[in-house]
């Protein structure tokens, strides 16, 4: 048998039928559903008189437009309430398990499935959401779909896909203190561009990846889509098994042992060929901050806002000039020292317990700068409870942060959490597109510690230097 990559292995194991050259019908192991991209899919099923083929492999939660304030109050936005109610009704009608606003398991879809142990190595996981790539951290093939595909999976438990190519992103070396998983992935996107991995599945390899915790691996895989990739994945290892062991949906006893044995085989054979390969030295990566209106417009915090005139193509020059105008920035301005109005610690990229611990460690005993409004939105109610058990909520509150309930919140501003026109935000989320966090809002993407430090300083700062200054 020829040498195969991790992705080839998972692909082969899920082929139900080859439909054409390189196009296959694949079987889906786990289908995650949320309120915003599913109503039309359920309506389609109903109109065609179809049912959900495997409701027990389908899991629903509400996250995108849920309010993150007081959960004892009714949802006061009638439009949001209509979508939340629709998902409730659809879940009941089609027999799908739902974590609604009252559920202790509610949270961002890409945070809850891993923490429940529903996300497992070797699986094919889909969701009507582009950041489904997050689940690849477990050595799964996890990809985002449009609503018609969601309907297709509900009806058939299968997916039609042209096989993507393989891209290896190899991270050597050891990360410096103050440099996070978020910086690694932002640096990669900065290098290869937002279309750098279109048509590919990225496998992240190398010592710097092996050294990551599961939560850090999720941060990396989460942003694969921001490089244009169909999915991102990391071969499972002891870190993966330790994380999963004892989780509510993970196998137990003999089934666990058999599963781990199977999972150990999920790796790329020596000599297997990737279509594309990129190498990045993790020890040379500095904390990253975006300056523009897509995640590829990123520089080291020690850098400056670039000059569009220095860019190679006309398209890029125009795009950069437009981005700077939108962002209200002048070429040559040092990133450090740019004043901010808002801070958002949240999203499926960086709102897990380790992220909150990291951010809390920076703000402990300090206070948010006077003009700045800062909020922490845990990725799930489980994360929230754990943080409260550890007293992190108090650390944040005492530092002047708002402490919220779980949801997507200001990552995309579908609920009441939005930026005002011209407001500048240090955000731990994954997209700095125009208007993403609110019409006219300006987003700078960065790691949780960088965002936390910015909240205290009232401006963008290098968390490495800033920490030394704090200690001195």
């Amino acid at each position, binding site marked *: 048998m020829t040498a195969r990559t991790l992705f080839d292995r998972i692909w082969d194991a899920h082929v*139900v*039928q080859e439909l*054409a*050259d390189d*196009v296959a*019908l694949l*079987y889906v192991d786990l289908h995650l559903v949320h309120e*915003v*991209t599913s*109503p*039309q899919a359920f*309506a389609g099923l109903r109109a*065609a008189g*179809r049912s959900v083929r495997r409701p027990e492999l389908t899991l629903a939660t509400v996250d*995108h*437009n849920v309010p993150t304030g007081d959960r004892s109050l009714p949802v006061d936005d009638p*439009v*949001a309430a209509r*979508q939340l109610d*629709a998902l409730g009704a659809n879940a009941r009608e089609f027999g799908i398990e739902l974590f609604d606003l009252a559920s202790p398991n509610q949270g961002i879809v890409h945070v809850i499935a891993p923490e429940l142990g529903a996300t497992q190595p070797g699986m094919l996981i889909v969701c009507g*959401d*582009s950041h489904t790539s997050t689940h690849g951290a477990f050595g799964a093939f996890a990809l*985002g*779909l*449009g*609503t*018609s*595909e969601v*309907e*297709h999976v509900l*009806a*058939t*438990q*299968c997916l*039609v896909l*042209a096989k*993507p190519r393989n891209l290896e992103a190899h991270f050597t070396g050891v990360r410096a203190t103050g440099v996070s998983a978020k910086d690694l992935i932002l640096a990669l996107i900065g290098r290869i561009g*937002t*279309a750098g991995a*279109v*048509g590919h599945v990225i496998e992240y390899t190398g010592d710097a990846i092996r050294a990551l915790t599961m939560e850090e691996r999720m941060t990396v895989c989460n942003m694969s*889509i921001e490089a*244009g990739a*169909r999915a991102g994945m990391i071969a499972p290892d002891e870190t993966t098994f330790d994380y999963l062991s004892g989780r509510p949906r993970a196998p137990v006893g003999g089934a666990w042992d058999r599963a781990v044995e199977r999972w150990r085989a999920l790796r790329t054979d020596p000599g297997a060929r990737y279509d594309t390969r990129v190498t990045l030295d993790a020890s040379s990566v500095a904390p990253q901050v975006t300056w523009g209106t*897509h995640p*590829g417009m990123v520089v080291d915090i020690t850098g400056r806002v670039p000059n569009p005139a220095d860019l190679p193509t006309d*398209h*890029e020059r*125009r*795009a950069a000039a*437009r981005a700077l105008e939108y962002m209200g920035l002048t070429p040559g301005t040092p990133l450090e020292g740019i004043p901010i109005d808002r801070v958002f610690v949240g999203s499926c990229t960086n709102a897990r317990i380790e992220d909150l611990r990291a951010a809390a460690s920076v703000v402990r005993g300090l206070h948010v700068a006077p003009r700045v409004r800062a909020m922490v939105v845990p990725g799930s109610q489980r994360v929230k409870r754990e943080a409260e058990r550890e007293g992190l909520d108090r650390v944040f509150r005492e530092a002047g942060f708002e402490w919220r309930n779980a949801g997507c919140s200001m990552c*995309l*501003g*579908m609920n009441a959490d939005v930026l005002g026109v011209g407001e500048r935000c240090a955000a731990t989320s994954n*997209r700095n*597109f*125009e*208007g*993403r966090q609110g*019409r006219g809002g300006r987003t700078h993407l960065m790691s949780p510690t960088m965002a936390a430090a910015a909240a205290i300083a009232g401006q963008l700062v290098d968390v490495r230097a800033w920490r030394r200054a704090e200690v001195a």
Partner: protein
Amino acid sequence: MEPFVRHRGKAAALPRQDVDTDQIIPKQFLRGLERTGLGASLFFDWRAQPGFELNDPATEGASILITGPNFGCGSSREHAVWALAEYGFRAIIAPSFADIFFANCCRNGVVPVQLGPALVDTLMQRAQRATVGGARRYEVVVDLAEQSVSDESGFVAPFAFDPYRRELLLRGLDEIDRTLLEEPRIAEYERLHQ
């Protein structure tokens, strides 16, 4: 789905790269329960800006969009394609597309045509020249059966297209119906993977 064999229509140029689906249809329009009613909100925020290309009355009635690389990146929201389709676009020509967006187009009878950057530039310039001041109509033919793009001024370029998707588009087939033809295979897979 409406079949797509060959379409001749007015072309509009949107010379921008990395146009993300948040721009195509901002989040405030994702709150509905239907696939319809989105066309009027296409590029909502950009439409409020005076210089936005599609504000030019000369682009009115365009059914083919010519644009820059990595079109449709970002969010998986199919609402972006529903909005483009309802607005009247039947084909989009660009040097490259984001993967999820590409798939979403195919499932809604909108044909994403990938051409080399120089070819797209040629079409873009011709469309821009024609639409400036609304002097005349610039029409392009997207022929999925022949897999070619052409205009009346001698432009002809072939394009590649995944044969499986092409067949569904040409015949306007429902993909779920097509997949259900494989029912015995699906059941067999399930039996083997209990």
